[in-house]
């Protein structure tokens, strides 16, 4: 008998069909991977197994856990199962913990609830769980609050909560998506070890094919609320049948076309940064302490030639966004100099300043958050044109907006719509059109594809490559995702703790990383091909 058997799950939320006849089963001690793009229904399948679906959801079908039907089971009985027999690890460690309770308290709470022991014993048990996830069980750890921990540490706490009562099934919904690559590797190893040690079954949900292929015994691929293909991991991936699965695998290792015209690096760079420093004050710990400062960017120098595409890689907090903000003129440099088109943008005033500003434009990670929801798309795209006021007529401005729309593959009629009418990928196209409208020399793209699904990501990367060849724009491409940087850039800079640790032509750096940190970063990213090769051999 399977540990968990879901049969013909149909889920409807507000008249919208989310799951269509989804069936899957997990055996004791087995790892099942559930892959799919956003909106495919993978998270809802997990919440259905926990019976924690959002309000207004109607679930039909059957889920049997250890022979007991849990669809429609009364909440009181389900409460006894949740946390004791089935538990869950969530995607967003930053918000998954109660900010007003200590982590010891939060781990002990579930133990107390299910084993009916006193606080003292529950704390001792909680200590063991925290120890197991690598946080240590001493009093200082137990008494810390979530905000005193990093994202990776918080995810460890969430895992400790989930495994504290020794559940038979652990559900992990995108457990590493919000984490840096090196932390991701640690968390995945931790999950794998715990599951093996305690003979737990794991339902691993991810959009990342390589992660799933690495961890799972069996994999199910989901699309639009249906499982399109499933099977044992290695045989499934070596013989994909469904066209969607094939498309997904292709998109995940997609590489946009290479540069057509060779770069001319001998000419004067369009952007040069010398010994840039930017630091922020930290809060005082005691009253009389001198204010300490955190140096986000520490003596960074870089050059970008015309048409060049430069990648900037690093983990969260390494200073890459501060650097980008300084280049965009949103942040004053403390020391060092910035020169764009031969001029210092922080000293330029009036007309000259507007001219420099229109030469450098930005694309951000979350396009929706950077649009005014009450503006039409044409107005959003045309907004940077105020930098050209007095120089171009209204008619010409309109023409520019139209050209920008067309260069990113949208139609002129799309300009009359509002941002909410577009999908995530189309919104990123709008953001790129807005950056293109002033005909800039350089686009600073800060994690431009991180929020997108793999197939959309492939399209946007192609668009960036196309614009580079067609319009000759240069890029500063900032990302934590090494495969993206590898695909689109000529040169790469690796940053760690505000300092550049390695730089060079992308191919060379990726093939032959010289700095240990670069090697660490590269080895931490699972690659589908390598993973499958390794699994086939073992």
């Amino acid at each position, binding site marked *: 008998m399977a540990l968990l058997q879901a049969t013909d799950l149909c889920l409807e939320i507000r008249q919208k069909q989310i799951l269509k006849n989804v069936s899957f089963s997990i055996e004791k001690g087995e790892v099942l991977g559930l892959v799919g793009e956003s909106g495919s229904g993978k998270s809802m399948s997990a919440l259905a197994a*926990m019976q*924690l679906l959002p309000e207004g959801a109607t679930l039909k079908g059957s889920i049997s856990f250890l022979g007991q039907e849990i669809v429609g089971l009364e*909440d*009181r009985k389900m*409460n*006894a*199962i*949740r*946390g*004791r027999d089935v*538990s*869950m690890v*969530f995607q*967003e460690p930053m*918000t*998954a*913990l*109660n*900010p*007003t*309770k*200590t982590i010891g308290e939060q781990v002990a*709470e*579930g133990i107390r*609830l*299910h084993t009916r022991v006193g606080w003292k014993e529950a704390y001792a048990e909680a200590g063991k769980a925290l120890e197991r996830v690598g946080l240590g069980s001493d009093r200082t750890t137990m008494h810390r*609050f979530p*905000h005193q921990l990093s994202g990776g540490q918080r995810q460890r706490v*969430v895992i400790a*909560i*989930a495994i504290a009562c020794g559940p038979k099934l652990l559900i992990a919904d995108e457990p590493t998506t919000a984490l840096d690559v090196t932390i991701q590797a640690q968390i995945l190893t931790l999950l794998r070890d715990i599951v093996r040690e305690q003979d737990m079954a794991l339902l691993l949900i991810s959009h990342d094919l390589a992660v799933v292929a690495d961890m799972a015994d069996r994999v199910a691929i989901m699309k639009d609320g249906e499982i399109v293909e499933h099977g044992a991991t290695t045989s499934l991936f070596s013989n994909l049948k469904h066209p969607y699965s094939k498309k997904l695998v292709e998109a995940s290792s997609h590489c946009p076309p290479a540069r057509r015209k060779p770069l001319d690096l001998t000419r004067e760079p369009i952007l040069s940064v010398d010994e840039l420093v930017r630091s922020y004050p930290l*809060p*005082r*710990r*005691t*009253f009389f302490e001198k204010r300490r400062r955190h140096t986000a960017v520490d003596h960074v120098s870089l050059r970008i030639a015309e048409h060049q595409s430069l990648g900037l890689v690093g983990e969260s907090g390494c200073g890459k966004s501060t650097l980008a903000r300084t280049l965009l003129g949103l942040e004053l440099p403390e020391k060092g100099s910035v020169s764009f088109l031969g001029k210092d943008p922080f000293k330029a005033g009036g007309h000259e300043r507007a001219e420099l500003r229109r030469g450098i434009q930005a694309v951000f990670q979350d396009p929706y958050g950077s649009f005014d929801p009450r503006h039409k798309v044409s107005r959003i795209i045309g907004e940077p044109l105020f930098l050209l006021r007095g120089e171009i007529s209204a008619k010409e401005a309109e023409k520019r907006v139209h050209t920008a729309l067309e260069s990113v593959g949208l139609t002129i009629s799309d300009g009359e719509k509002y941002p909410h009418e577009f999908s995530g990928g189309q919104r990123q196209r709008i953001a790129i059109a807005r950056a293109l409208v002033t005909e800039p020399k350089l686009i600073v793209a800060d994690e431009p594809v991180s929020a997108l699904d793999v197939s959309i990501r492939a399209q946007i990367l192609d668009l960036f490559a196309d614009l580079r060849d067609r319009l000759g724009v240069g890029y500063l491409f900032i990302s934590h995702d090494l495969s993206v940087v590898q695909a689109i850039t000529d040169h790469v800079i690796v940053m760690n703790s505000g300092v550049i640790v390695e730089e060079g032509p992308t191919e060379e750096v990726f093939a032959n990383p010289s700095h240990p940190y670069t090697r660490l970063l590269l080895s931490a990213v699972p690659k589908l091909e390598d993973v499958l090769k390794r699994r086939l051999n073992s």
Partner: protein
Amino acid sequence: MLLYGIMRFAGLLATLFAASLVLFLILEVIPGDPAELMLGMNAQEDTLAALREQLGLNAPAFTRYIDWVTGMFSGDFGISYTYSVPVSDLIGDRVLVSLPLALIALVLSTVIAIPVGVLSAKYRGKALDTGIMAGAQIGIAIPNFWFAILLVFVFSITLRLLPSGGFPGWEAGVWPALKSLILPAVALALPQAAILARVMRSSLVEVLHEDYIRTARAKGLSKRSTLWLHGVRNALIPVLTILGLQFSFLIAGTVIIENVFYLPGLGRLIFQAITQRDLIVVKSAVMLLVASAVFVTFLVDLAYAAIDPRLRR
């Protein structure tokens, strides 16, 4: 935590200093000669001059400010222009009416609002929630003096349960004194409770959508335990902000309510002092109210840190 407390206390002192300065300057520019007021229209010029000298009105503004502030620290608030008795005596009696009134109203509004708000959030979208929120809307809309008259009509005139006004003094015993404060406190508390309940509801509804609520449910906690153990404490943070702001409104409200119920409180004292241009009384009484409001804000700040560990550094 200690550093946070010290910083807040420093803020309290700075605010009090700024407030005293503003208050002093405003009353300085208001026309009207206290000596003339005290002696009447027919006073002789030399008696006026003598009185001015005696009241210290001829000294430069800076000296008078310093005298006023240092006086307040030693409990000497000056002599009332109209009653010719020490202002401290006047205020002292009244504070014993106004302070209990404001505190009872504050406690009452909190005690009503928080459970009502939680209940409303728990049954959000259901009939109970709609009913409570409609009631709260009415509570906000009704002017408190009109509500006070309504209370008098029901509880004093019709049911004859509680006195309709006046204050027997604490000498008459705790219960009779409290009895005469009940209706005014209810009249003061109702609109505040209505606002607070709405804030509590919306804050809790928002918190219930947080990820950590889902984590708590995944642990196996029931909906009810999740609401109380993980929801309410986090939802209290914005409620506290409003509570702190409301104390000032409560104090302002006492001016009207004390007039309706004929209570010899600070509000009425200030009201009378203003009409009689007894500026020395106004100055000190207002300063006292400012101090109490600032002090309550300080307490709220400390309560923030107690609830939210992110503020303790």
